[in-house]
């Protein structure tokens, strides 16, 4: 069956098997090499293996919940959306969430996802207590920071290349409502946006939408969204009666692939200008429901089709703090000059993180998406170079086109990751189209 990541590029003919339980899985996993796949929300080729792709979505049982600590034990295929449906009405919310709720627990661990609160709380791994994983020797192993610590740390952010994640225990955070107190601050350019981030370190959530086609003195103009979970005292009386009830949004659908010309520099530029003006005029604080705040794109099912049949590629890098301003400036200049605007350009401050193979480090991260075509692929090669020149690195969960030598230059941890894979036989057992491309 033809499979792809969320970006629909590349498309690979894959043999798929869908285990229903652990015995099934162990039997199927005797065929090698293989990669586990969750809900297919990584953008590129991280979850594709032509010989065997294990569809983990049926391994989706929630196993235990501790009402005192908020610790949930769940199988790897459980969706974050199901976790929210189940536990938000009981006063719990994911401690870290990526920009879509349609991801699995296994996927969140393999990518060590981050959210809008990374500067304060770190990545998903900060709330992860233990993992059970099927390793190359065919054994199921429990690992944590104290037990099989090497395996635990390599698996976090290890893109499924240390084994098949079977189940995990991680903590949710207590919340008083399903509402977010959102404050929108507009920034006339990149320098202003960075100043706002630096002054907002105490905000739980912060993220900026950035107009990547603006140039000159308004290069990097942005809308910075700050957010806090609304406490009961923040709610008006009509919401106080049912603080976890938020309006159910009607799901929109993209029924067709948009034609290739629908997204061009003029439509994107117009969209960005209108969006900025609308946001600018709405500056201030308002109550927003959790779904709109964290997952605006989830309301449009199959939104990946707006990029047309050829799909799209994401670019996400992080630049260390000392070089952030210069690096971001250079990236934005290159994008603006190329006229290859992206609808969804997101800027975010990361806090410190020290891990074996996870993406985040202290600094600023920029995420963009482009329709797949020659010009945007060339532009992304340029962005790679700028990232390297500023000491930055790349997010593998987004990547579909990075080159192996670029990755190795960006991150000294890559060679250690390769060695670990070799010495544990993981290299010949677990592989994806991405790990082949990047020689991981």
């Amino acid at each position, binding site marked *: 069956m033809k499979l792809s990541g969320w970006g629909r590029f590349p498309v690979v003919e894959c043999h798929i098997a*869908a285990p*229903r*339980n652990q015995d099934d899985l162990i039997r199927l996993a005797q065929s090698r090499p293989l990669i586990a796949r969750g809900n297919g929300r990584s953008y590129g080729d991280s979850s594709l293996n032509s010989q065997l792709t294990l569809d983990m979505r*049926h391994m*989706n*049982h*929630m*196993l*235990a*919940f501790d009402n005192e600590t908020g610790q949930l034990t769940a*199988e790897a295929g459980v969706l974050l959306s*199901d976790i929210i*449906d*189940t536990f938000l009405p009981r006063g719990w919310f994911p401690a870290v969430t990526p920009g879509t709720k349609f991801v699995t627990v296994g996927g969140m661990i393999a990518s060590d996802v981050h959210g809008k609160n990374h500067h304060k709380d770190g990545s998903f791994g900060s709330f992860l207590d233990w993992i059970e994983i099927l390793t190359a020797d065919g054994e199921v192993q429990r690992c944590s920071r104290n037990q099989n610590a090497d395996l635990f740390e390599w698996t976090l952010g290890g893109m499924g290349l240390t084994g098949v994640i079977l189940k995990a225990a991680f903590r949710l955070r207590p919340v008083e409502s399903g509402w977010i107190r959102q404050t929108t601050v507009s920034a006339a350019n990149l320098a202003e946006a960075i100043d706002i981030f630096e002054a907002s370190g105490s905000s739980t959530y912060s993220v900026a939408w950035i107009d990547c086609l603006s140039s000159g003195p308004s290069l990097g103009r942005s809308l910075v969204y700050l957010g806090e979970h609304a406490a009961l005292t923040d709610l008006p009386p009509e919401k106080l009666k049912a603080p976890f009830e938020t309006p159910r949004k009607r799901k929109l659908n993209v029924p067709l692939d948009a034609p290739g010309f629908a997204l061009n520099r003029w439509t994107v530029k117009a969209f960005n200008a209108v969006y900025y003006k609308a946001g600018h005029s709405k500056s201030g604080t308002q109550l927003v429901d959790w779904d709109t705040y964290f997952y605006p794109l989830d309301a449009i099912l199959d939104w990946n089709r707006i990029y047309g049949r050829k799909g799209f590629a994401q670019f996400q890098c992080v630049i260390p703090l000392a070089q952030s301003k210069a690096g971001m400036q250079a990236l934005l200049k290159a994008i603006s000059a190329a006229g290859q605007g992206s609808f969804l350009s997101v800027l975010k401050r990361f806090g410190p993180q020290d891990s074996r193979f996870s993406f985040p480090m202290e600094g600023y991260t920029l995420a963009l998406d482009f329709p797949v075509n020659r010009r945007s692929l060339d532009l992304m090669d340029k962005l790679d170079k700028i990232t390297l020149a500023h000491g930055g690195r790349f997010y593998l969960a987004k990547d579909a086109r990075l080159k192996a030598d670029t990755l190795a230059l960006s991150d000294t941890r890559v060679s250690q990751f390769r060695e670990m894979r070799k010495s544990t036989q993981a290299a010949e057992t677990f592989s994806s189209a991405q790990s082949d491309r990047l020689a991981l």
Partner: protein
Amino acid sequence: MTDTSKQKTALILGGRSDIGRAIAHRFAADGYTVALAARNADSLETDKADIALRYNVPVSLHELDVLDTAKMPQFVDGLGMLPDVVVSVVGLLGDQAENETDLEKATRVMRSNYEGPALLLGIFANLFEQRGSGTLVGVSSVAGDRGRAANYVYGSAKAGFTAFLSGLRNRLAGKGVHVVTIKPGFVRTQMTEGMKLPAPLTAAPEEVAEATLKAVRKKQSTVYTRPVWLLIMFIIRHLPEPIFKKMKA
């Protein structure tokens, strides 16, 4: 949790299958206490934990082999309660070519799709009739609407099951007991994995579950889970035999 004595109970026969699991989830989400019956029921502990955790309802597991008809009364007694709804999702597709030559395999398909589920629902029918309430749901198949070369051993057993449900419905009308026949067309399950199924005709197990709960609520009699199947099967049933023979469907 609400007062459990007032909670309705749904018993799912064949609770391990993808459709059975989806139905258990849907009924639990609606507030039903759920009882799952299957072979090796112990291995459904993860399902039990999962459903209890997600929907905050009690879940119980019950050992059941639908081919062991002698033990059926014992199974029903052992439940310790009489459910409000019993859904049979029991079934076995088998391999048509094997079923044509291997008597043992064909017998197994016939008994799993007809004899087992029909006899067991028959026991519940009598108890429901005495009580004067309850709903019986049989998940049958469009394959029972007309025997086709591709799967007539399975199809004929489903046809028997469909006729049994129809008769039961007829008998129990006016006695407070309702009988629902669900005919899913293609469903994306473990049973059909690897088959090339046309997407517009293929339902997810959750759709079958939704249709089942709706049929129980609205007291529908026969439900095709995707309406297009009603049309398809109408045509297939009415094709004249000389044409149908040439199609080798």
